[in-house]
């Protein structure tokens, strides 16, 4: 190391949380994502009732209960696990509810940067920053739930570090 950086040994605590609007994005996504399995389950259960007489109400009831749980509880918890911090020459991104993941990408290894906004993200005014690296593992690193201004500012900051020669 040529220029001395203060050693970083931070745990998950001092990370910047995502924009609170991301909670709403996650919630809408989980509402939509759960619908198809719920419909399939309902159809399957009613077929089962017609064939064997097993009451479909129980299965559908359990399905709706599970669906409500994922819609009401999971988005908040997922949101809380996300966080990021810009550390001098790199960025640290934490995520994951069950398998916790903390990724560090040095800025000068970033190949290119995307900002993407799906319809739900556009509606709530957030954006996803995607860092592409040359590695086969972590070839794309996503940081969702940034206010659009933040995402654009970070993109411009990181862009100034990108090397133009191939490794």
């Amino acid at each position, binding site marked *: 190391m040529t220029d001395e950086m203060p050693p970083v040994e931070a745990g998950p605590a001092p990370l910047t949380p995502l924009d609170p609007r991301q909670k709403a994005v996650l919630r809408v996504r989980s509402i939509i994502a759960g619908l198809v399995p719920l419909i399939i389950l309902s159809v399957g259960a009613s077929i089962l009732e017609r064939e064997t007489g097993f009451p479909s109400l129980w299965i559908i009831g359990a399905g709706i209960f599970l669906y409500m749980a994922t819609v009401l509880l999971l988005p908040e918890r997922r949101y809380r696990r996300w966080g990021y911090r810009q550390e001098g020459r790199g960025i640290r991104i934490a995520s994951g509810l069950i398998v916790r993941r903390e990724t560090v990408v040095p800025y000068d290894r970033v190949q290119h940067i995307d900002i993407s906004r799906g319809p739900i993200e556009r509606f709530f005014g957030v954006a996803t920053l995607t860092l592409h690296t040359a*590695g086969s593992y972590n070839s794309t690193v996503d940081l969702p739930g940034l206010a659009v201004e933040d995402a654009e500012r970070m993109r411009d900051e990181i862009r100034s570090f990108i090397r133009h020669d191939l490794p």
Partner: protein
Amino acid sequence: MSEQPENWSRLHPATLAIRALEQLPQFVLGLPAAAYFIGNTGIVVALFFALVGVGVSVGLAYIYWLRFAYHVGEEQLIIESGVFNRNRRTIPFDRIQDVSLEQKLLARVFGVSVARIETGGSGGDEGELDCISREEADRLRDRIRAYRAGSSADADTADEAAVETEPVLYTMSAGRLAIAGLFNFSLVFLAVLGGVWQYVGSYLPSDYLDPRQWIDAYGDQALGMMTALPIVGFFALLIAIGAITGLVRTFAREFGFRLTRTETGLRRQRGLFTRTDVVIPLKRVQAVVISTSILKRFFGWRGMALQSLGTDGGAGTNHVVAPLAYAEDLQPILDELHSRPPPPDARFERVSPKLIYRSWLEDGIVLAAIIAGVSFFWSGGPWLLLLVPLFAIAPVLQYRAHGYCIEGELLFVRRGFWRPRITILPLNRVQSASLVRGLTQRGFGIATLVIGSAGASLASPLKILDLDENAARKLLGRDICRV
């Protein structure tokens, strides 16, 4: 193609002959099946259709050949291809690292080879001339080298003499090939035999597989023959078959192995039937992998491969540069890569011993679930408990074989008890790194560090398992990624 310059070249005409000959076996093998469907009298009809099929595919190959042209210019290679959708690809010599050649057996008969253009990019389909003559390939190589020598005003302008005598870094003698063959002991032959048996079996009477039939018919006779000699003979035969399989496969792949230094990279020639001539540009080399096995290590043998952008044809992601070598044989290659041999085991940092407890817990749960599941169908389920000692000892061996070491600009990671391997990754080739903590790992306060590097296999990236969580976090930000 009127707009093209005069000196455009076509692929070697032997390409057509090779295409046709390559397809012949399919048609010959397909004949009995076709005859079966058409009926016994239809063999002539089947033969006719087969000939028409060969004719059509050769015709198509001929049209494709007519529409494929390339031009070796002063500064670039241009390839035009496609029957209906014309595709013109221009590859500037600046971007070409070198040309790799591959000659299958048929191609060798005709004296032609497949030329693959190696550019500095991240691999993929960059340009392939299938097939051109050996002289044409040399002409292409020379043109690229001459261009580079002319354009680069640096001191290292390649003089012709140096190009002719590339320094040899590693070769394999016949003796070493034989040793490598013995280490490649393989009973894959039995699997092949099993496959053939199954295929042939469908034509045999249906009860041939019933063991009771066999015991009834030959049981007494077999018991009489159960003396020591046939049993020993049987195992000796198995061992001989395994050794011969290993020898044959090794000789076919590694015969004439020769690694030389070109001005841009390392050049590897090998193969008895399919002869390959591959250039690995030094710029594309990401990591060095030195692997051995517990048996090889006992004799001091090891092998070395380079993790590079792009794959080594069908031979996997890594380019083997020394199949079997002593430590000192690897030194010249490591020197060219500006790398160093791994430090002694004692210098490696161990991971957390909690790796052992974590494995015991996870394997224990899996084993318990399997035993519970099997017990439903089979009363002998508890016999599986005999596996417990195996599961108990394996994590300890894994722990003792695992470690990492950072020296200067290099990260060394060693892993594996039965097949120990050391990965040498320069820290400036680290693209990103992640700390991953699963459910059990969180309980133990440990974390796995996964390091992303270019050209690595996605299925098995470089990992340092089960580090103490705080140590891992420090390693992640400060030592590995240096942010």
